[in-house]
């Protein structure tokens, strides 16, 4: 029987949650790497037993771990992320120029076809690639070398490259997102990149058509329709129908269009999930009610999903990498909170159950569909 494996990164370690296809009962393994911040754990689509984890602390910096057996055993691999050439500078909070400094890996995205190839999105914003299963990392410096690079400015969470999407049919095409620079696309495997932010409106920016300076929180796609992208921006839920060439707002009737994660159903490319958050200053659900909102129309029309979710006195946040979908039928949806809950819905969001309630603050959730 097929099953699901959730890869959960938290402030104090990683957890691996497994269930069979019913998704009724879950085995919780962990904490792995106890005490370390695990920003992200992700599996190879080409080999589900090949996992990569980003492990870090303020004391000891970055470690990358690899598992070849689905998370039973792990091996530290390469942790040297050296910017290509002279790093140069980007814009700092006070408007001055600031040297690019590596802080941590936010996101690991394995190749869709080669388990030994994996991309890393890092802070300060850059993308690295390993083609030897994480042993060594090389920067794809065409991104950071873009002519706007010295204008990129960190968001409150740092100048982080947090989203990497690989086109399912054309691996030369990838999308990345950086807070608070915006979204970028390559069509040549990462050699060159260009901003894809046309149509984004970031209220305080005096120049409405500014090419960069947009705080993109997350981008999601359904692989069956890879030119349609959905974006949760700092404010606004956006949609592109042309691979990011242009964006239009689909926030519609959401109670707030601020939020962090966004996900697309595995089988229904017009079914999209967001978790509205009250505001950029309060980072809590509106009215103390934890509600996932689902659109089945590709945006604009949203319905609250509340069954099984706390509807009073709930003030957790859901971070940008902490929502995922599985590929089973019916499709499952999962998210983790800063309060340590992992919620699962085996029916596309209609009903929710907390798999665990008291983990450390959840930074990331990935769902692997196992044969």
């Amino acid at each position, binding site marked *: 029987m097929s099953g699901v494996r959730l890869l959960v990164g938290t402030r104090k370690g990683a957890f691996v949650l497994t269930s069979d296809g019913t998704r009724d009962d879950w085995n919780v393994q962990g904490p792995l*790497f*106890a*005490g*370390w911040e695990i920003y992200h754990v992700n599996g190879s689509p080409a080999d589900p037993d090949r996992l990569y984890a980003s492990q870090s*602390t*303020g*004391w*000891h*910096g*970055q*470690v990358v771990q690899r598992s070849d057996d689905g998370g039973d055993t792990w091996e*530290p691999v390469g*942790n*040297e992320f*050296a910017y290509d050439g002279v790093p140069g500078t980007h814009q700092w909070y006070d408007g001055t120029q600031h040297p690019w400094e590596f802080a941590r890996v936010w996101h690991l995205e394995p190749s869709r076809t080669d388990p030994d190839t994996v991309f890393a999105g890092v802070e300060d914003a850059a993308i690295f690639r390993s083609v030897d299963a994480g042993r060594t990392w090389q920067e794809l410096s065409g991104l950071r070398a873009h002519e706007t690079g010295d204008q990129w400015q960190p968001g409150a969470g740092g100048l982080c490259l947090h989203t990497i999407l690989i086109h399912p049919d054309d691996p030369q095409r990838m999308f990345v997102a950086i807070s608070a620079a915006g979204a970028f696309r390559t069509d040549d495997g990462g050699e060159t990149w260009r901003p894809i932010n046309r149509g984004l409106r970031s209220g305080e920016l005096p120049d409405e058509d500014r090419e960069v300076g947009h705080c993109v929180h997350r981008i999601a796609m359904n692989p069956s329709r890879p030119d349609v992208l959905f974006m949760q921006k700092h404010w606004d839920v956006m949609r592109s129908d042309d691979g990011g060439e242009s964006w239009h707002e689909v926030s519609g009737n959401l109670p707030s269009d601020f939020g962090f994660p966004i996900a697309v159903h595995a089988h229904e490319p017009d079914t999209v999930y967001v978790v509205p958050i009250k505001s950029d200053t309060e980072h809590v659900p509106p009215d103390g009610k934890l509600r996932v909102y689902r659109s089945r129309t590709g945006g604009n029309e949203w319905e609250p999903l509340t069954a099984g979710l706390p509807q009073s006195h709930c003030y957790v946040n859901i971070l940008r990498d902490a929502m995922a979908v599985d590929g089973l039928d019916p499709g499952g949806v999962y998210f983790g909170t800063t309060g340590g809950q992992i919620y699962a819905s085996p029916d596309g969001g209609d009903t929710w159950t907390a798999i665990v309630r008291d983990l450390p603050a959840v930074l990331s959730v990935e769902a692997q569909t196992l044969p």
Partner: protein
Amino acid sequence: MIRVVLPQHLRTLVGVDGPVSVDVGERPTQRTVLDALEASYPVLRGTIRDHGTAKRRDFIRFFACGRDLTLEPADAPLPDEVASGAEPFRVVGAMAGG
């Protein structure tokens, strides 16, 4: 042999429960001890000193013989008790954060 006591996170990373030993010859210094440590346990590269610059990470301290040697020159000889193996060289995670 120099005995090196690592903080818990690094002991876990290396896979040891107690001190580790490294051989650096006569007149060990911070630099030669850390070089030998990283050569013996490559997983420690980047976790005590930065890659490339070999600069000590901000929240790492070095203690030995009841003294804080963190700000001593990297090439200064370590105390004789450390060189003889009587006292360990301690890599310490500074108290910070939660």
